[in-house]
């Protein structure tokens, strides 16, 4: 049928329309498949989690326990770890990414900027498990030998924030996890920022320079206000990545279901908890269902973040 549509003699409306209709149907099916994919993921998580939610109710979300012996599970500790590491990562990555984006667009010459920009984007291509191994081999000993003892002695005695820096210097923990995530998401955020900065009409910057503004004043007063929405969108995109990251975190988080103020104490994240405990939980057990439930919560958190990010970035593209 399709073949006949290609020969000029058969170019009647009916046959031509038929080929197009078939093609349109195939293409629409593929598109619906994507919707089913995401919808299916959410639905399957919810379905797998039903036993845990039936047993513990909504209190599951705020329950600190995770005890396979007493069959008592709660999501608070891994959720706390996920949020703390991701927010630490954002706090560290945003200034870095911003500095890089400004350097690439305003400071470096275009030729050098192209090379360095590519190198930084290569960092984004490095698989997360490599970050985990690097963190374990380089960052953890560095933290344990230098940063944490030092912070213990100095910042640890400052009233108010001292608690943040208490604890044994294992090297693993929330701060190390946050640092690894920060290195991972910096290239993503800086790529978004660089693209927005470059898309800005040059005349705006030129007039500001013409009025005698310094470079930093142009960045601070002209570029940043102009691109604020997309910059926040890029940051949310980075946050979304950080929330769902598994392999990089598993190596350095310390894997203890623990909530505490110390940045040096070992903790756990949802993704890391699933990676570690899922292989040792039987289908149908309460633990299995609880893991699906924390997975479902992670899905909700990261989807909400990504939706915000996309809405912010889309506003910019449209206007």
């Amino acid at each position, binding site marked *: 049928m399709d073949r006949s549509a290609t020969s000029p003699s058969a170019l009647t409306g009916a046959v031509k329309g038929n080929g197009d209709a078939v093609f349109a149907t195939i293409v629409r099916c593929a*598109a619906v498949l994507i919707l089913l994919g995401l919808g299916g993921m959410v639905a399957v998580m919810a379905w797998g989690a039903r036993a845990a939610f039936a047993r513990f109710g909504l209190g599951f979300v705020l329950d600190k326990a995770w005890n396979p012996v007493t069959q008592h599970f709660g999501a608070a500790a891994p959720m706390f770890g996920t949020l703390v590491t991701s927010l630490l990562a954002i706090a560290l990555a945003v200034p870095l990414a911003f500095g890089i984006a400004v350097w690439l667009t305003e400071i470096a010459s275009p030729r050098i900027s192209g090379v360095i920009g590519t190198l930084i984007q290569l960092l984004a291509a490095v698989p997360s498990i490599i970050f985990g191994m690097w963190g374990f081999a380089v960052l953890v000993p560095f933290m344990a030998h230098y940063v944490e003892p030092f912070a213990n002695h100095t910042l640890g005695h400052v009233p108010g924030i001292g608690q943040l820096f208490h604890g044994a210097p294992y090297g693993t923990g929330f701060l190390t996890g946050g640092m690894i995530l920060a290195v991972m998401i910096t290239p993503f955020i800086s790529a978004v920022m660089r693209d927005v900065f470059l898309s800005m009409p040059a005349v705006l910057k030129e007039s500001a*320079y013409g009025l005698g503004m310094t470079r930093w004043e142009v960045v601070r007063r002209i570029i940043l206000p102009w691109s604020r929405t997309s910059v926040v969108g890029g940051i949310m995109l980075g946050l979304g990545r950080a929330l769902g990251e598994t392999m990089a975190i598993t190596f350095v988080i310390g894997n203890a279901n623990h909530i505490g103020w110390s940045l040096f104490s070992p903790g756990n994240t949802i993704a890391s908890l699933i990676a570690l405990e*899922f292989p040792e939980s039987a289908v149908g057990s309460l633990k299995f269902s609880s893991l699906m439930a924390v997975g479902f919560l992670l899905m909700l958190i990261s989807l909400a973040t990504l939706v915000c990010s996309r809405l912010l970035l889309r506003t910019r593209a449209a206007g």
Partner: protein
Amino acid sequence: MAGQESVAATTVLMDTDCCSSGRWQGNTLSDMRRRMVDRIATGLCWAATALVLLMLFSILFVLIRNGIGGLRWVTFVHVTLPPGQAGGLANAIVGSLIQTGLAVLIGAPVGLLVGIYLAEFTSTDGRLINLVRFVSDLLLSAPSILVGLFIYMVVVVPTGHFSGLAGALALSILVVPVVVRTTEDMLRLVPLSMREAAIALGAPRWRVILFVCLRAARDGVATGILLALARVSGETAPLLFTSLGNMNWSVSPAAPMASLPVTIYQYAGAAYADWTALAWTGALLITAGILMINITVRLGLGRNRK
């Protein structure tokens, strides 16, 4: 580009002016403060860039230092063995190739079709298109471990066993959004006049799309598929609960299958020196492969742009 240069020119002009006559930027306290803040901010931008580059080189250095020793013939021809028995990574390498290959074979056509849908059907399905594009973008950054859980529930549990095919399916979910994005972008770059010319010759729409537009965009689309391949070949989390890993030689997609990332994950945490050394070698191999694909793609893109 021209705009950037003229900005730079303005800056230079201002600098010389301020040095020679000092008329524009005076020497009052507030002016000195402004220049100081500017210098500090510039210095911090340099520092941020240098720090992140340092991280990249530190990662590459550690990988090469720890992994280069394992780049021996035996690593490529022997399968993984118990500690102390001079094993290799052959089954993991082949498993990775099979699974990523299958993932691209499954994911790329779907991604292509969806990309075509998003780029070419805007006039008829505007609203659905926006939704599909939105969801595809969400999938691009969705937690990959949850993709693994999803496939575990819908493939591994019903079939009753882990399999390489399940791993490939999980990876293919990650391939689709990457291919969708690049296909759509590249199709939008195809000039309207080309479509009009093809339609004027009497070609049906599906032929115009497949043999004119897609053909014109094929370099970009191939780039997207390569990038997707690079992205999934380092993914570990989706494979943990789907293809599981396999200590023995196995190329059957119906059986549990080894893969480099999972083997690295299992070996890196082990207490045996030869296992950790193999983990580093695997990590070096996979990173080198991925970076090579990325560099090739970027160089290719740069050439086309010129």
